[in-house]
């Protein structure tokens, strides 16, 4: 079962749950993000306007369940790590917004996890917003965050010249956090990244809001061509290597694909640590 199918199934189940669970049972809890499913979100692209739309945010536990950090989990070392990472990037970019490519050395290294959480970390800051762009065409994952997997994404944007950028930017139930999926469930050729349109898209996304940090969820670095193009489009590159999954040779070849000038460093992911031992 593919990840997409899983996501669809889960979405369906959750929707079902919503229908079954009485409102009283939900109590004072924040409505699950699935509650907003179906609403066509025409997000006004300002933080203040974003804030209006964010009544239906996901709870800390729900985010936790989905593997996304939440400020409430201050005790969790992961939260701390991503905050530090964010601070590091902030220092590097001198408080300017930036385009950050997060690329895993190889598949299964958790590149998407790091990208997602890095974006979330940026979003923790009330003065900043984060935009997660799914650039992993072969194994997309951002759509799982969206209320509906079929919401328009990059593919739609490239195929439809008239489409406005705002139509592909979707809220994900986290404050100041937006995402662009690959769009639909179809394959999009890598050549799109080379196109001027992509460049323009990134530029416009960056230029439009100064407080917006754009995180590109890149393909594995084994896909050297895409990695190289995307690294050119971005300001910084974070390379994700997962404990016990990556060989030094893979890291070596991955590092060769990107400019060392843009390289922020390596994120060592999934370091084993006993959770109760801080």
């Amino acid at each position, binding site marked *: 079962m593919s990840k997409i199918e899983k996501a669809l199934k889960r979405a369906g189940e959750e929707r079902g749950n919503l229908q079954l669970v009485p409102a009283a049972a939900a109590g004072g809890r924040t409505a699950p993000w699935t509650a907003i499913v179906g609403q066509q979100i025409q997000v006004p692209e300002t933080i203040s306007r974003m804030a209006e739309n964010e009544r239906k945010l996901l709870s800390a*536990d729900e985010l*936790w*369940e*989905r*593997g996304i*950090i939440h400020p409430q989990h201050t005790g*969790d*070392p*992961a939260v701390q*790590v*991503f905050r*530090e*990472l964010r601070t*590091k990037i902030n220092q590097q970019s001198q408080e300017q917004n930036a385009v950050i490519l997060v690329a895993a050395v190889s598949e299964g290294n*958790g590149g998407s*996890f*790091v990208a997602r*959480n890095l974006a979330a970390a940026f979003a923790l800051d009330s003065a900043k917003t984060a935009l997660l762009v799914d650039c992993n065409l072969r194994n997309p994952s951002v759509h799982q965050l969206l209320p509906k997997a079929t919401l328009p994404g990059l593919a739609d944007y490239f195929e439809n010249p008239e489409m406005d950028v705002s139509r592909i930017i979707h809220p994900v139930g986290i404050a100041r956090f937006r995402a662009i999926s690959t769009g639909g469930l179809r394959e999009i050729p890598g050549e799109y990244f080379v196109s001027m349109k992509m460049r323009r898209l990134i530029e416009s996304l960056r230029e439009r809001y100064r407080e917006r940090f754009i995180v590109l969820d890149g393909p594995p670095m084994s896909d050297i061509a895409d990695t190289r193009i995307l690294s050119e489009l971005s300001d910084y590159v*974070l*390379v994700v*290597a997962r*404990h*016990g*999954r*990556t*060989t*030094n*040779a893979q*890291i*070596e070849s991955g*590092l060769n694909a990107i400019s060392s000038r843009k*390289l*922020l*460093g*390596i*994120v*060592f*992911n*999934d*370091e*084993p*640590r*006993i*959770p109760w031992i801080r």
Partner: protein
Amino acid sequence: MQMYPEQIVKALINESFHSRRLVVGMFVLVNVVMLTAGWLWPKSFTGSTSIVVDEKSIMEPLMKGAAVATEMADRNRNAREVILGRRIMGQVLERAGWLADHPTTLEQEGLFENIKARTTVTPVGRDVIKIEYRDSDKERALFVTKTFADLFIKEMIAQKESETRSAFDFIDKQAQEYQQKLAATEEEIRQLRSSNLDARPGSDIELSARLIALNTRIENTTTELREAQMKGASLERQVNGEAEVTVLATREGQFRARIAELQAKLDTLRLSFHDTHPDVVQVKNQIQDLMAEASAQRERREKAKPSQRSEQDETVVNNPVYQQLRRELSQNQLTIDALKARIAEAKRLLQEEVNRGKGLHSGDARLVELTRDHQINREIYQDLLYRRERARVSMNMDSDRQGSNFKILEPARSRPSPNAPRFWQFVLGGVVLGVFVPFGLLFARLRFDPHVRLANAISERHKVPVAAIVPHLWSPGELAGLRKELVMLALVVTVTLALSATLSVVRLLGVL
């Protein structure tokens, strides 16, 4: 990559947490393997027994000098050879039932070697031999050890018996031989004596005395003979000097004597008278007459001489000295002849004695030799007789087991082999190995796995900063799952340990 001990420990803890199932799985696996190995490890029992070779039996002082106890000390040394020898081994194989399924000769060889390898024969001190035999079967270990001891003792006693018997037989044979020799010598001496009667002790002394006597006699006689001969020679000479008849007594002699008287008268007359004086002429005439007469007489005698007819000369008178000398000479001749005869006789006797002495000496030498042989043989024979009786007593002692100086000091008993690994050792080893093997493997993986497992290894290797080390983000569901998993793993470990402990106790109590 340089790693500090605390880093290693931390990394190992994290790694073991990460690979917790593997660790627990390995722990269980190692324990199970060790338990199985311990359970299936062939049980080893050692049967042991001690045999004392008692040289100072009660019989010894009693029989001291009369019987010789067979020396046992050296047997300790070759006890192993005896016990593991083919004779005893073959019987052991048979009695212990190894031959029940009729193994081939080659298989039997294998069995021999096998049993040999599991048997130890150790001399303890001077007098004690310890036999140990290992086997997986308790009863068989006991049985084989017991059989070894029994057969060994039997063998040794038989050996001892046969030894004393052969010693007796040998001495007996020797005694008989000497008896025969003695008899033969005695017979020879008897024959020698009978054939040579003189040949008896002391006859040589007698002979020499006789020889000396004879020699003395010959010498004396020879001296006498020589004296007689000298006397004879002297008499001969005297006889030759004496006339047979006195000359004066002859006519011619009387004439000559008258003539000489007349001549003297003439000479005297001539001093006083001249030749013409009558007296002188008368005297002269007388002389002439007498001279004619004497020459006539001489002629007559000369004429009578060839006819060997003694001229009866009325004036011949036999010389008495001559007669006397002749008589003595003749007497002396008789004496000489007698002496000569005596010497010859003595010489004959001497020769006889010498001849007899020669025969006596050769016979005597043989006799002496025979006597000496006889003497020695008799001594040896008596000694042998004495020894034979001692040997007989020794033999009887051995056959009555009175001199049996083998005793089982410690009866055969069977117990678990001291050196064989115990079950609890397997269990303990399992637990220890169960901990160390996974950790060792984890450490090896940490060191040699090409996959990156340590963040600082990346920065060190690629000279790239590590921007962040992201721990695993545990979702509540995952945490719950982890809790369950850890409980399960703990349970598995507990069950494993409990199983080990239970099996150890069961094994210890000998229930199974």
